[in-house]
C-alpha cells in the first residue's frame, strides 16, 4: 500500500518531539488569536513568519499551519459567547451559537463546535490525502501558458469572493502585482520602481507587506473600537453534553458541511468564510427543521464549523500542489516555503514527500491537540476574553515591530511596515479589501515570469493562452466566475440567512 508507506513517512516526520512541540505551539497560539476578536489568523501567521526562518522547513510549516487551523477553532468561541466572531469565517456560528449561549446552553454549543471542528478537520485531511497526488500528477503536464492561466483563475476567484466585490477585488490584485514588480527584474537585471532606494533593490519583503497591511492596519482599525471589556458577560458552562436526539440530528449536517467545506477549500481563491456561509444557507434551505435555524439549534453551529474547518484543511491542496494560494493566509504559507527554498507546485510531493506527508500527519495531531485544548481547557479561553484590550494592542504593535526587525535587524523594514499599515488602513476606509492585494503580491512575480515565457515560446502570439485547451479552459472558468459574480447569487444565499438575524 503506497498510501500506508506515505503515511508512515509522514508519521516519522511529524511524530518527532520537536515537530509535535511546535505543532502544539502553533495550534495553541492559533486558538489564542482566534478567540481575540480583531486580530486574525493572517496577522498571527505574519508575526510568526520571522520565527519560522530559524526552523527547518517541515517544522516551520507544521507550526504556521497549526496557527491557521487553530484559529478556526478559537474563532467560534467568541462567536458563541459574545456574538462577536473571532475570525471572519466564524461569523455564521454566531447565528445559532449565541442564542444557545443566551439560553444557558453555551457549554453544549462549545462542545458541539469542538466536535464539529474536529470532524470537519479530519474530513478535510482525508480529502487532501486523496486529491493532492491526483491533482499534482495532472498539473505536471502544465506549460507556462497553463500556469499563467491557473494563476489568473486563482486571482479572479479571490477577487470575486472578497468582501468588497469583484471589481474592487481585481483592482486590489492588480495593485498587489504592481507592488510585486518593485526591485530587480530577474530577466533583465534592471531595477524597477525603487526610486533610487538601495534597500528596495531586492524587492519588498512579504513579511513587511503582510504585517503592514494586516497587522498594523488591523490594530489601527480595532485599537480603540474594542476598548469595551467583556468582563460583564456571564458564561454558564453547566450541561456540556448534547442530548441524544441532538447527536442524531447533527450527523447529516456534519457530513454535508464537511463536503461543502472541502469543495470550497479546494477551489483556489475561495476560503472558509464562503464555505461556512454557503454551508449554512444550503442546510437551512434543505433541512426539515429550517424554522429552528437562528433560534439556537445545534445543526446551526455544526454546519458552519464543519464547513470552515474542512475548508481550512483542503485549502492546502491548491497551495501545495499548484502553488496557487486559496487565501491571503495561504499566500503567506507559500511565501514561507519559498523563503526556505522550496517551490510549491506539482513537484512538491515527489521532491519533498517528507514535507507533504509530515504536514498531513501533523494535521491529525494538531486536530487532536485542539480537541483537548477546546474541551477540557475551555475555561482558559473564556477567561482570556476578559483581558482588557487596552493591554493587548500596545503589545501587538511591539510584536509586529520585533517580527519585522528580526528578519534583517533593519529599521528600514520597520518604517516600510508602517507605510504599508497606513496604506492598508486607507484602503479599508475606501472599502478596498486588502486580502486579494497580498495574493497578487505573492503570485505576481511568478505570473510575470510565466507570461513572458509563454509569449517567448509562442513567438509573441498572445493567442497561445486560448489555443492550448488547458489554458483556455482555465481562462474560461475565470470568465464564468466574473460573469457569475454579477448574478444575484449572493442575494439568494443572503435570503437564506435573513430570517435568522432578527436582532
Amino acid at each position, binding site marked *: 500500500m503506497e498510501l500506508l508507506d506515505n503515511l508512515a513517512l509522514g508519521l516519522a516526520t511529524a511524530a518527532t518531539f520537536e515537530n509535535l512541540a511546535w505543532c502544539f505551539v502553533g495550534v495553541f497560539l492559533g486558538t489564542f488569536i482566534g478567540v481575540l476578536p480583531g486580530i486574525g489568523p493572517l496577522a498571527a501567521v505574519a508575526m510568526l513568519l520571522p520565527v519560522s526562518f530559524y526552523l527547518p522547513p517541515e517544522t516551520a510549516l507544521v507550526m504556521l499551519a497549526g496557527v491557521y487551523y487553530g484559529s478556526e477553532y478559537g474563532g467560534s468561541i467568541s462567536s458563541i459567547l459574545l456574538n462577536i466572531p473571532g475570525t471572519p469565517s466564524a461569523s455564521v456560528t454566531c447565528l445559532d451559537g449565541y442564542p444557545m449561549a443566551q439560553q444557558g446552553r453555551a457549554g453544549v454549543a462549545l462542545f458541539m463546535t469542538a466536535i464539529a471542528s474536529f470532524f470537519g478537520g479530519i474530513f478535510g485531511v482525508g480529502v487532501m490525502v486523496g486529491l493532492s497526488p491526483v491533482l499534482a500528477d495532472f498539473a505536471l503536464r502544465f506549460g507556462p501558458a497553463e500556469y499563467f492561466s491557473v494563476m489568473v483563475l486563482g486571482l479572479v476567484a479571490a477577487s470575486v469572493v472578497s468582501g468588497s466585490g469583484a471589481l474592487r477585488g481585481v483592482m486590489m490584485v492588480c495593485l498587489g502585482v*504592481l507592488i510585486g514588480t518593485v526591485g530587480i527584474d530577474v530577466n533583465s537585471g534592471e531595477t*524597477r520602481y525603487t526610486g533610487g532606494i538601495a534597500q528596495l533593490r531586492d524587492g519588498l519583503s512579504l513579511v513587511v507587506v503582510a504585517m503592514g497591511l494586516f497587522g498594523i492596519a488591523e490594530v489601527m482599525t480595532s485599537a*480603540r473600537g474594542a476598548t469595551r471589556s467583556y468582563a460583564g458577560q456571564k458564561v454558564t458552562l453547566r450541561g456540556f453534553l448534547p442530548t441524544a436526539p441532538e447527536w442524531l440530528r447533527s450527523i447529516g449536517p456534519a457530513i454535508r458541511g464537511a463536503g461543502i467545506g472541502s469543495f470550497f477549500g479546494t477551489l483556489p481563491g475561495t476560503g472558509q468564510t464562503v464555505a461556512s456561509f454557503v454551508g449554512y444557507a444550503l442546510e437551512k434551505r434543505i433541512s426539515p427543521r429550517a424554522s429552528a435555524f437562528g433560534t439556537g439549534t445545534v445543526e446551526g453551529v455544526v454546519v458552519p464549523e464543519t464547513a470552515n474547518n474542512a475548508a481550512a484543511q483542503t485549502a492546502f491542496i491548491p497551495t501545495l500542489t499548484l502553488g496557487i494560494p486559496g487565501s491571503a493566509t495561504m499566500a503567506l504559507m507559500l511565501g514561507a516555503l519559498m523563503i526556505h527554498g522550496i517551490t510549491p507546485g506539482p513537484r512538491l510531493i515527489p521532491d519533498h514527500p517528507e514535507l507533504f506527508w509530515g504536514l498531513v500527519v501533523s494535521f491529525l495531531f494538531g486536530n487532536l491537540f485542539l480537541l483537548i485544548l477546546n474541551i477540557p481547557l475551555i475555561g482558559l479561553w473564556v477567561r482570556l476574553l476578559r483581558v482588557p484590550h487596552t493591554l493587548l494592542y500596545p503589545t501587538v504593535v511591539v510584536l509586529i515591530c520585533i517580527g519585522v526587525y*528580526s528578519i534583517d535587524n533593519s*529599521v528600514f523594514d520597520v518604517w516600510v511596515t508602517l507605510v504599508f499599515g*497606513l496604506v492598508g488602513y486607507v484602503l479599508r*476606509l475606501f*472599502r478596498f479589501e486588502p486580502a486579494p492585494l497580498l495574493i497578487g503580491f505573492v503570485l505576481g512575480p511568478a505570473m510575470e515570469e510565466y507570461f513572458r515565457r509563454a*509569449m517567448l515560446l509562442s513567438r509573441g502570439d498572445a493567442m497561445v493562452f486560448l489555443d492550448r485547451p488547458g489554458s483556455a479552459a482555465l481562462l474560461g472558468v475565470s470568465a464564468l466566475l466574473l460573469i457569475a459574480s454579477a448574478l444575484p447569487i449572493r442575494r439568494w444565499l443572503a435570503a437564506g440567512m435573513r430570517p435568522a438575524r432578527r436582532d
Partner: protein
Amino acid sequence: MPSGRLIALLGPALMLAVGLGFALGAVTALDLGTVRRMGPGAFPLIVGGLLAALALVALIKEWRAPGEVTHPDPKAVAGVGAGVAVFAFVTPLFGVLPGAALSVLGTSVVTGALGWPARLALAAAVAVGVWGVFVAGLGLPLPALRWP
C-alpha cells in the same frame, strides 16, 4: 451631499493615479521590449493600464451611487504610528528591549489608554516578555541592549 460624494470618489481616484503612475513609469523609464521578448516594462505597463481602466469603471460607479466611506480614527492611527516610530528610533540606539518598552508607552500615551502606573507596568512586562521569548527562548540574534 456633494462633499460625501467627492470623498467616496477619492478611493478609485487614488487607484487611477497609482495605475497610471506605474504605467507611465514603465513607458518612460523601462525597456518595453518586443511582444515576443518582453522587456522589464511590459508587464507593469499591462497591469498598470488594467488597474487604471478598472479604476475608471469604479469611479463612474461611485459617481452614480456613492458608497460609504468609513470615518478615520486619527487617535488610533497616531497611537499605533507612534508605537512603531518610537520602536524604529530607539532600537538602533539602545537596543530592542528599551525600544519595546518605550513603544508600549508611545502607543498607550497617544491613544490615551490606561493610567500611568498601568502603562509603566505593561511596558516593563512587555520588555521582560520579549527578552524571555525572543532573546533567551528562541535565541534570535537581536541586540537586546546597546549604547550609542
